[in-house]
């Protein structure tokens, strides 16, 4: 019963997807509109304080949304739209940095830390079994032990 309810609102959900932002800007074709909408969060509104053109109400964001919609409507692929924007506005316009050699440190470091850390932890631990690694006795403790052992032997 619950599932039927769930399916019901799902249907509504699917039908009303892509109805975002200002209705006067929307593309008529829902498929193209959805594609444009998916691109918006990846593109920076360059004059805003760290907002994507999906979030911003600034004029520049509206212009960029218009450009993206026009490009999508003209049959460009997502990659082509992104390349076009980067050519026109520079790398700064993309909120997702490119997978390039100069950005290698940015993309690789998080995972390198975990892998190196896990390797160090499990690798080093395995090579030194727990039982054999007891703390060495101090000379005083050693002397006491020898004395005790001696008294035991008597």
């Amino acid at each position, binding site marked *: 019963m619950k599932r039927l309810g769930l399916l019901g609102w799902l249907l509504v959900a699917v039908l009303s997807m892509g109805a975002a932002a200002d209705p006067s800007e929307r593309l008529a074709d829902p498929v193209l509109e959805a594609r444009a909408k998916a691109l918006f969060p990846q593109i*920076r509104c360059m004059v805003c*304080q760290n907002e994507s053109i999906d979030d911003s109400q600034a004029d520049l964001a509206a212009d960029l949304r218009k450009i993206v919609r026009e490009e999508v409507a003209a049959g460009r692929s997502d990659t082509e739209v992104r390349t076009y924007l980067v050519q026109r506005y520079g790398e700064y316009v993309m909120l997702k940095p490119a997978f390039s050699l100069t950005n290698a440190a940015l993309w690789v470091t998080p995972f390198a830390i975990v892998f190196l850390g896990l390797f160090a932890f499990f690798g080093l631990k395995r090579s030194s079994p727990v039982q054999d690694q007891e703390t060495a006795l101090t000379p005083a403790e050693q002397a006491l032990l020898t004395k005790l052992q001696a008294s035991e032997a008597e």
Partner: protein
Amino acid sequence: MIVEIGAFCLILSLILSAAQVGLSVIGRVRRSAVFYGAGEGAAGAAFLMVLIAFAALMYAFVTSDFSVANVAANSHSAKPMLYKVAGVWGSHEGSMLLWCLALTGFGAIVALMARGLPAAMKSIVVASQGSLGVLFLAYTVFASNPFVRLLQPPVEGRSLNPLLQDPALAFHPPFLYGGYVGFSIVFSFAIAALIEGRVDAAWARWVRPWSLAAWSLLTVGITLGAFWAYYELGWGGWWFWDPVENASFMPWLIGTALLHSAVVTEKRGALPGWTVFLALGAFTFSMLGAFLVRSGVLTSVHAFAVDPERGILLLTILGLAAGAGFGLFAWRAPKLAPGGLFAPISREGALVINNLVLSAATVTVLLGTLYPLIKEALTGQSLSVGTPYFNLTFAPLMGLAFLVLPIGPLLSWKRGDGLGALQRLWAAAGVAVAIALTVLWVQKPTHVTAAVGMGLGVWLIVGVFVEIAERIHLGRASPAEVRRRLGGLPRGAWGMSLAHAGLGIFALGACFETAWKIEAAQALSLNQSITVGAYQVQLSDVVAANGANYIAERGLVTVTKNGKPVCGAKPERRFYPANNQTTSEVALCLEGLDDVYLVMGERRAGSEGQPAWLVRAYWNPLARLIFLGPLLMALGGAVSLSDRRLRFAAPRRAAEAVAHPVPAE
């Protein structure tokens, strides 16, 4: 006059903090109880002076004394009282004073209330806290003095940014600063441990309540900030991976790692150097946050009290404090006794993985925040690092942490039974996979990552129940025995369970809301409606609604579901003449755990020339969980903090208990 008293007390507190350092150091060198006491007294007096200064500034704000430059710049006579008071910490100068208040306040608590602490170690903690106090008070007095008078006072103030005139944001800074600055005590304890060359279970037990308290406050502070962004910025987002948010998130991540490694040090004496390192790191990241937020080196939606020149000074303070701390660490840490040993598959091992992932996550956030700066400095190219980057790096790291989390508490210390723990978790794994698959099957369009995230959230929540069931021997012991064990569970265990369940609840809400929220927007004339999800949103009326310091158009919106009324909402579009700024006041309809989120937009002409308003409606499913989860985590911290074993005098009481043994259970 009162303002001058405030200025005088602020300077006095700087002198007292310097005395606090000097007296405590002399006390430590001579091992003199008189000097120890004098240093502690100075710490208490320094706090009292900052408190008076703070009260004086609040008085100036409440009475709208515009001859004070800070009040003239940040207040307005028509502002509601709550925001006059909150205006005290709404500016650069005032917020630094709040920072100093927390710093000296925590110092005074340790100096005057932590009686069981060994005198030598305590004197170093007090001295270290005093040194931090000197740095930040000197900055406040000389570079950021909130008591500066204007020669020609204006008739009216320039008012506080209207976006900040909001209840959530009025309380956000005190919590946030309590958290940031709470880590200063942990920092001072780390300094003391390094100088004394002792990091043991007793030390870890002293550090834990402080890190717990700071962490809980920071959790509440960040949650309030996210909630504010959610309903005040008006586009339904709650986390933007914005530099200012990252600045508060990094100390939180390090603080979380510290909480866990301190447990290992307390229970097993292991990882002493690492725990000290994290203790230094948490406050270092707090200071880094203060610098990033105030210096204007990064652009942010929350850009706050930006001033590049003072940013250099804050960077200097950060360099001095962190440099001293980590320099001391490099010099003294190798001399710390190595801790207890343990196998990779053990409770310690799981906590090491936790620390590893949290450290990597912190570095990720740090890199994502600073990489644009670094790259621009090195190559002259500017780039952006936004949400897509964090989704691809931070999220998988957290996924790994979530995967390991429920296993850890089921492993025993030193050497655990990994297979046994997994066997006991089969039910949790089954439920998690079932939920993830159901979500995938029912929800279209399909978002695999969101379904995985929800599965992991369920894995955490069910894992918590499995862990409690294991602790109380559910199904293995008699009902009476189970009840007895349930009653005997320490508060610390409940705290941990609450926090872990809270994290799972947060993951459920965050993943579901992000993947499946629905938005709709349309210019509506009166009595027209739009559909969002299963809801009909009708604009019934628009009325003028003017507040003390703004004029507004208020929409009366009726939300119905299948023809049945759900709620009446009143979103507003406000104009603040004092700031010449327009804001939207979002209305939220709570529908169980979901939100229907309504925003009034600008007025425009309708199809037949009649007036219409751009109404945006969002259906945010499970959005409540996003804020409920972190609050549960903070509650977990508070419950854990109330555990008898963690109270200040606990070590002493434990010693008394040994002297007068009570019958064992």
